[in-house]
């Protein structure tokens, strides 16, 4: 944008200077083109280009900000408080790297699944919604304007609704799941807007940094508490935290497999990041209020979510629904880390944001592979002995599953380790024991799947199924990532610690 009219200017410098905007704008601009493209595979190339460009931009931004530098970008060169500001710091760049990487891998694997699960004429529209969802979620993480955040929230919600509803080709219940997600999500977003209205009325600004500096001056007041409550309640809906997680299991399980992969990997992560932003940046100057709310409300909700999700997963026999219930539990772990409000807790939350994206992205992607090969929904019945019929996909599923259980040498173990350490630091042994019990319970539902997949013999006369390299190559990249970050977690852990520092560094 800046310097576009200067003919002699270095193109590379322009690109670098506008990286934060490009990261969001490229997918959003490619979306309408993808919608008009009649050929599904061409639209897929566009989606790949869009998510790939965002991934490169996120990596560059991460390399700039990893030492704690805070990068600001004024959209259209309008300075805040008049214009909208994008901020990249250690927290947002880590979240962006995780999200863009998983979105890119999910796009790589999507093509074959889309060919099978979506009507050919709808391929272009599917990728258009895909790009819009990605762009909206990236914008959610980048924006430093409280109202602009609502707009990105709704862009991503509407696009996700379309992605979920497109599952209607194979299961009509996808339509109801999409409708419920739209309705519940819209109520959540409206709650957020009410909260923003209250704090705007008190401060006269919408810029997050301005809000952070002006709110403590106003001090305590019922209006601020109400505003904080409404904003957080709205975001809790989007992050699918118990008890407002009810839209998630249906939405993830009836959506087409690639959409489940994308949403499970990145959608709730963006909302959790926003939750941290509200609590620690906007209301960072009022730690007493925030800590009171987090310790008394979010911690119990997170623990309840962990248990509800785990128990529901144990009794579920449809694989996608089982994984969705398990997502509710895993989101609980992330929320618990953030709600501890200590640097170690927030770092643990961010570590699990990264690791859970790897784990669930991989698991849903593998299920997509099963669905393509079997030609039907993946339930425990028809996955019997799949380990011998599809060894490549099933082994990757096994690795991601072990990582979910938190086996040593996998990424999930690192998450649990840092979460447990953070809880130990706060000396809340009740929470610690609950986390450990729920961890053990999660082995139950994983064992249930693994037993069916590996221990039971395949039905007689069943041939080996064809495994598609376009699905198992990105899947194995994720599976190796799960092992890599289990053995050498240095990069992720230090990035997460920098993220925690960027969020609460000033306050602690």
């Amino acid at each position, binding site marked *: 944008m800046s310097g576009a009219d200067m003919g002699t200017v270095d193109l590379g410098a322009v690109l670098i200077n506008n990286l934060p905007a490009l990261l969001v704008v490229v997918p959003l601009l490619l979306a309408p083109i993808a919608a008009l493209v009649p050929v599904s595979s061409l639209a897929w190339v566009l989606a790949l280009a869009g998510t790939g460009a965002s991934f490169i931009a996120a990596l560059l931004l991460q390399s700039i900000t990893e030492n704690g530098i805070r990068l600001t970008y004024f959209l259209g060169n309008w300075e805040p408080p008049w214009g909208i500001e994008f901020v990249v710091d250690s927290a947002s760049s880590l979240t962006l790297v995780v999200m863009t990487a998983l979105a890119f891998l999910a796009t790589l694997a999507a093509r074959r699944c889309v060919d099978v699960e979506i009507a050919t004429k709808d391929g272009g529209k599917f990728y258009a919604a895909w790009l819009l969802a990605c762009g909206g979620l990236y914008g959610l993480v980048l924006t430093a304007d409280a109202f602009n955040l609502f707009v990105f929230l709704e862009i991503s919600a*509407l696009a996700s609704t379309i992605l979920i509803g497109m599952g209607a080709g194979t299961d*009509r219940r996808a339509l*109801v799941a999409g409708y419920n997600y*739209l*309705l519940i999500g819209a*109520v959540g977003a409206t709650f957020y807007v009410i909260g923003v209205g209250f704090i705007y009325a008190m401060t006269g600004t919408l810029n997050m940094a301005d809000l952070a500096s002006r709110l403590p001056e106003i001090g305590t007041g019922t209006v601020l508490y109400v505003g904080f409550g409404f904003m957080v309640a709205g975001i809790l809906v989007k992050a699918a935290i118990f008890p407002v997680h009810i839209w998630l299991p249906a939405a993830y399980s009836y959506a087409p497999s690639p959409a489940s992969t994308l949403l499970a990997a990145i959608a709730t992560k963006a909302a959790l990041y926003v939750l941290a932003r509200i609590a620690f940046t906007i209301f960072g100057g009022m730690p007493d209020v925030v800590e009171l709310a987090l310790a008394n409300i979010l911690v119990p909700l997170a623990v309840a979510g962990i248990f509800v999700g785990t128990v529901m997963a144990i009794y579920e026999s449809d694989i996608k629904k089982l994984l969705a219930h398990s997502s509710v539990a895993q989101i609980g772990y992330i929320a618990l880390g953030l709600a501890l409000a200590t640097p170690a807790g927030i770092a643990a939350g961010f570590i699990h944001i990264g690791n859970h994206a790897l784990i669930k992205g991989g698991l849903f992607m593998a299920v997509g592979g099963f669905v393509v090969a079997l030609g039907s929904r993946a339930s425990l019945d*028809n996955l019997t002995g799949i380990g011998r019929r599809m060894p490549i996909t099933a082994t990757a599923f096994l690795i991601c599953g072990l990582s979910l259980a938190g086996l040593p040498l996998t990424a999930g173990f690192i998450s649990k380790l840092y979460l447990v350490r953070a809880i130990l630091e706060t000396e809340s042994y009740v929470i610690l024991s609950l986390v450990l019990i729920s961890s053990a319970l999660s082995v139950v539902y994983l064992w249930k799947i693994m037993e069916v997949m590996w221990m039971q013999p395949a039905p007689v006369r069943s041939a080996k199924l064809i495994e598609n390299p376009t699905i198992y190559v990105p899947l194995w990249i994720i599976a190796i990532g799960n092992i890599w970050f289990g053995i050498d977690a240095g990069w992720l852990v230090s990035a997460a610690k920098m993220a925690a520092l960027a969020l609460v560094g000033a306050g602690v």
Partner: protein
Amino acid sequence: MIEQLAFSWNYIIVVILMMMGLFIVIARTNLIKKLIGLTIFQTSVFMFYISLGKIAGGTAPILTVDPNTLYSNPLPHVLILTAIVVGVATTALGLALILRINEAFGSIEEDEILAAKVSQAMARPQRPISGGAE
């Protein structure tokens, strides 16, 4: 007393509409009525913002020659313009989904759709395990 009431009148209406909208979303089973409830809920928030921007005696925020003119705050109006657009998109997508739900289930009553789901699950034919799509 009257002045106080006149001052907070907008906000009283906002709260009433907000509660009505939320109640309809939660309590109704008809999908279209739920969407109407959502629209009422959102509209109440629009009114809330517009009321915030009004300054007693203020005029429309268009620059006049008189330097002492009192203007209303235009920013909430602009924000709500955006929110209205978002609201329209949400309603449109919701209605489109209801159309498809009606085609697929033959009903837009939530309880009937849930019942249909159960019967479908009961009657679901067991797919042959061997011989996938490929």
